[in-house]
């Protein structure tokens, strides 16, 4: 075994919700027997975004808000890699909002874990787009990424977990990565991950979370139903969790971006680009177009 990048000790505050994600990711990768070298963790910028340093895994620290763009580039360059993007709610819902909304359309088979704590931890506690009115002087209504995800007609996996419930989180992450491995497209998991230093919501959230799968009529294949259930739950002052959307079964046609573009699953990073290997194709191309 080559000695290469080891996990370094975490730099998070003791008790930070992000630890929940770290251990759940580790556990799911282990359960699915995905070796370190076959997975890439794309971190955002923020406390959350440092996560890739705290695992022995391939890691790339993307620019603030750009983790999904980099993750899609990685997945399309080498569809065999397990790609997990993980970052904060400032990273994903503020500066990264454009790429976030487009990730559902693109539908590359990768997992995005967004660590929601209503604040910008690393820059010391300003309001994130998810912050309630009044938080640090915030006057804007909080953004809800799950509702935005549910609004579009796309066959993605959509869920919310809570760092206070690591068992369920582990189960859902494993399901999400399996969804990716089957080439079924994008999986989005928003994790409720309290910032104990600037916004310690552990207690409050523990009381408010409600797993929608416990409700009558729960059907994550039906967008209309789930949207209604979600809104009714919110109206009751609860925070919906669990799996909100999961298409019934893999369709016959490829739905994921990488399978549409690379049906034989050989990606740009793996293809042999030697001149000799490609000469016939090049000759044909140059002949045709010039």
């Amino acid at each position, binding site marked *: 075994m080559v000695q290469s990048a080891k996990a370094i000790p975490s730099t998070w505050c003791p008790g930070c919700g992000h630890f929940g994600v770290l251990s759940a990711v580790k556990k799911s990768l282990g359960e699915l027997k995905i*070796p370190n070298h076959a997975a890439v963790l794309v971190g955002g910028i923020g406390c959350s975004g440092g996560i890739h340093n705290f695992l022995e895994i*391939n890691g790339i620290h993307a620019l603030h808000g750009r983790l999904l763009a980099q993750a899609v580039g990685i997945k399309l360059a080498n569809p065999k890699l397990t790609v997990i993007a993980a970052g904060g709610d400032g990273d994903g819902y503020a500066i990264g909002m454009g790429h976030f909304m487009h990730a559902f359309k693109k539908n590359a088979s990768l997992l995005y874990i967004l660590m929601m704590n209503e604040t910008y931890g690393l820059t010391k506690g300003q309001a994130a787009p998810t912050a309630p009115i009044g938080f640090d002087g915030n006057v804007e209504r909080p953004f809800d990424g799950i509702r935005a995800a549910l609004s579009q007609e796309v066959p993605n996996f959509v869920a919310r977990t809570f760092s206070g419930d690591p068992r369920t989180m582990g189960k859902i992450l494993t399901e999400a990565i399996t969804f990716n491995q089957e080439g079924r497209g994008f999986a989005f998991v928003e994790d409720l991950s309290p910032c104990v230093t600037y916004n310690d919501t552990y207690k409050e959230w523990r009381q408010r979370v409600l797993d929608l799968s416990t409700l009558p009529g729960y059907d994550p294949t039906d967008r209309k139903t789930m949207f209604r259930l979600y809104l009714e739950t919110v109206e009751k002052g609860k925070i919906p969790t669990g799996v909100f959307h999961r298409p019934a079964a893999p369709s016959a046609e490829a739905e994921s971006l990488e399978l549409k573009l690379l049906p034989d699953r050989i990606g740009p990073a793996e293809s042999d680009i030697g001149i000799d290997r490609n000469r016939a194709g090049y000759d044909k191309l140059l002949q045709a177009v*010039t």
Partner: protein
Amino acid sequence: MTTPLAAVPPSSRDDAPARSGRPKELSDLSVLIGGQGGDGTLTVSDLLGRYFRKRGLYVYTSRNVLSRIRGGHADASIRASREPVAAIKDRVDLLVAFDEESLGMGRGELEPDGMILYDSSVFHSDLPNAEGFPFATLAGGQLGQPIYKNTTAYGVISQMMGFDPVLTRAVIEDRFRRRGGEPLEKNLKALELGRSAAAQRPATVDRWSVRDGGAARHRLLTGNLAVALGFVVGGGRFFAGYPITPATEIMEYLQRYLPAFHGVVRQAEDELAAINMVIGAAYAGARSMTSTSGPGLSLMTEGIGHAGAAELPVVVADCQRVGPSTGEPTRHEQSDLLHLAHLGHGEFPRFILAPGTVDDCFYLTVEALNLAEKWRLPVILLLDQALCQNSVTTDPFDISRVTVDRGRRLDAAEAAAMETYRYYQGTPDGISPYAPPGTPGVTSQVTGNEHDEFGHVSVNPANRVRMMHKRMDKMVRALPELPLPHFYGAEKARVGLIAYGSTTGPLREAQELLARRGLATRFLQARTLFPVPVASFRPFLESVDVAAVVEHNFTGQFSQLLREAMPDLAGKLRPVLRFDGLSFRAPELATTIEEVLRGPVG
């Protein structure tokens, strides 16, 4: 690496026979076609280009359109010559005017014995050398759609210049075959409409003649197409971009060509996504590129810096247009150089390469890919609107001249044989071995934060100094292997000319004109712009008394770079600048250079 063009010949005009009964032969002719956007001026130019190319002539075409889809003045110009050409001619032999505005705009450029064809269904002209044909009503009446007027005009021209009728038809067939059916039929009819209308007037029958040239294997290509082809052949396999004039065609060509080679092309949601997708793909091990123009380039600033800091090989093709801001999207300028040389907060290495011809576009794209991957840094391929979108007859690309050098990329066995794998391993030349993610047994950490050799964040001051040297010294170490300039003209001349990009074409013609006026010059066509290749530039500057630095911008950006790099020779530099959105023309350029050289030595 490109074959320098043969010297530009004296204009055919000089020794042409006086007008007589038999057609006058043109060996270097120019046609300007003007109208409203949507009138199909580009189509006329395209058809003529195809015809002349089939006749073995050297062709150069350029276009002048507005940033709108229909309406507004648009024109296209085409030059065909028996000798190689790399710029538009200064004067026009034939002006085709679909509207009165075009006649007004084009008249001034007409040769004394030049001729005008105009659409008499739109306006009337009394000029003695003007022949009116009702192009629009002819086509509208007979074919139901006035838009076929462009092919009708092509028909008139073909008659007037004594085109071979079979070849003339073949051009239409080539061009419209893909669409097939009705469009092809109607265009063929439109052609005949034009030919027969022209046949009825002595002025438009065999007025001029065009002899075959010897350039049989040449192709008529734009720089954008050459870049796209260079990308494919150079092993480029991942491209992400966002539409923007004049870069869009690179993406569009690649959308067609790349899938056959396990390649992926994505139209991203914006340029931020494009550069970051490219970064992701480069990290994963694909040869990757994006192309853009001014506004998109500015948006990519942070991403390019990330590639520089994280040591990821990306190629960014910048198709320069008129700036700043949205500027003039369809017009020509070279004003991004200093931005590119210093782009991004903080300091990171980059190379800026600039092809000067369509041919060079192909080979330097390959070079850019090789250099990026070998040195693991961003490489800018600096283009300009004229180079990107004008077309010129070009030698077939020679695949045997292409090599693919992936630098210190490890395969699985090489990686497994290492004791320790560090993504940012210190080495004498600063290049760390690269194992793509997925390599068994190896993991890597990559970041744009300052980091140690393993890629973990570090603010240790000594490490910082080491890492800055590791990255920045590449600009010094790589310099000897960056593309060399091309030199043209008299070896011993005391007057130097310096330029890059599409300015190469008109400047070579200007050089010829100056030579004829007795001024010997030597022209350094820069192909590496940054870091400034002092090893080749300094001897050149030392060898001349004075050098005109010819570029399309306001502040003399390339002059500034040179002045900073060689302050002791700054006194020799004379900026020759144009920034009105149009390309230099050779005669004007020759005159300006003469004037500037006469100016006070600064």
